[in-house]
């Protein structure tokens, strides 16, 4: 089971984080938390998480996404999701989080959705 791999790139004031692997307890959850915290501390408040290569999220990973969403919003920023795989899409749908997150299927639209 692969761990989570993560790289960040900036597009002006927007940071895109490309994730691949699993966001799960003991694997990617802690890394995702640290990444979002580091971005916020660096003043990056417009964040897109590209989940195109994330094929597994457990309840711990869901909790981390929600935690990140809340942390960014509390700083006056926005965290959006990009390229959900079918399993992640279904998971967010049954947990009703699809209505909470701003979700996009193409990067251009996601980047230009920020105010």
């Amino acid at each position, binding site marked *: *089971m692969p761990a989570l791999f993560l790289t960040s790139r900036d597009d002006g004031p927007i940071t895109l984080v490309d994730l691949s692997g699993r966001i799960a*307890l003991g*694997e990617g959850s802690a890394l995702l938390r640290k990444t979002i915290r580091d971005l916020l501390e660096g003043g990056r408040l417009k964040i897109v998480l590209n989940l195109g290569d994330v094929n597994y999220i*457990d309840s711990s990973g869901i909790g981390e996404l929600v935690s990140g969403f809340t942390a960014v919003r509390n700083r006056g920023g926005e965290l959006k999701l990009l390229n959900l795989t079918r399993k992640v899409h279904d998971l967010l749908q049954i*947990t*009703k989080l699809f209505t*909470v997150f701003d979700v996009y299927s193409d990067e251009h639209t996601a980047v230009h959705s920020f105010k």
Partner: protein
Amino acid sequence: MAPDTKHLEVTLDTHVESVNLAEEMCLRVAEAVGFNEDECYRIGMSVREGVINAFHYGNQEKPEKKIHLAIELTQDKMVIHVMDEGKGFQLTDVPDPLAEENLLSTSGRGIFLMRAFMDEFNVVPGRTGGAEIIMSKRFPLPGPASTNGNNRNSGSDAAPHQEA
């Protein structure tokens, strides 16, 4: 237990690595008995959530406590038991993660996911003193197009041994 029920039981440490171990073990059994990829995903996720529940809420991450995982293969379903050594809990006390006030909660979705992904789900007082999660998934109906060679009746080496 019915005479043709196969049974496998392991005792796991209260450690985060036990979550992956339990998931992998159950996935191997699920694949061996013929569940498809989507059903294996649901079974694996449910086992993972059950063991996370035992690790975190039941045993409160205390290393001296154990997590007991059992798999039964009956004639028509795979039954999974996850037992902790905590104080037990009532399903009626678990908050609904879909309630508006809980949507942004960072925890509390494990029970919901197990219920959603398995055919049967229940929590009872366990023989180890804590809670026992019991969940099951019915075997897929045999189809004429089953060509992957891992059908439940094909005699896989990965199937659990018969209990004495």
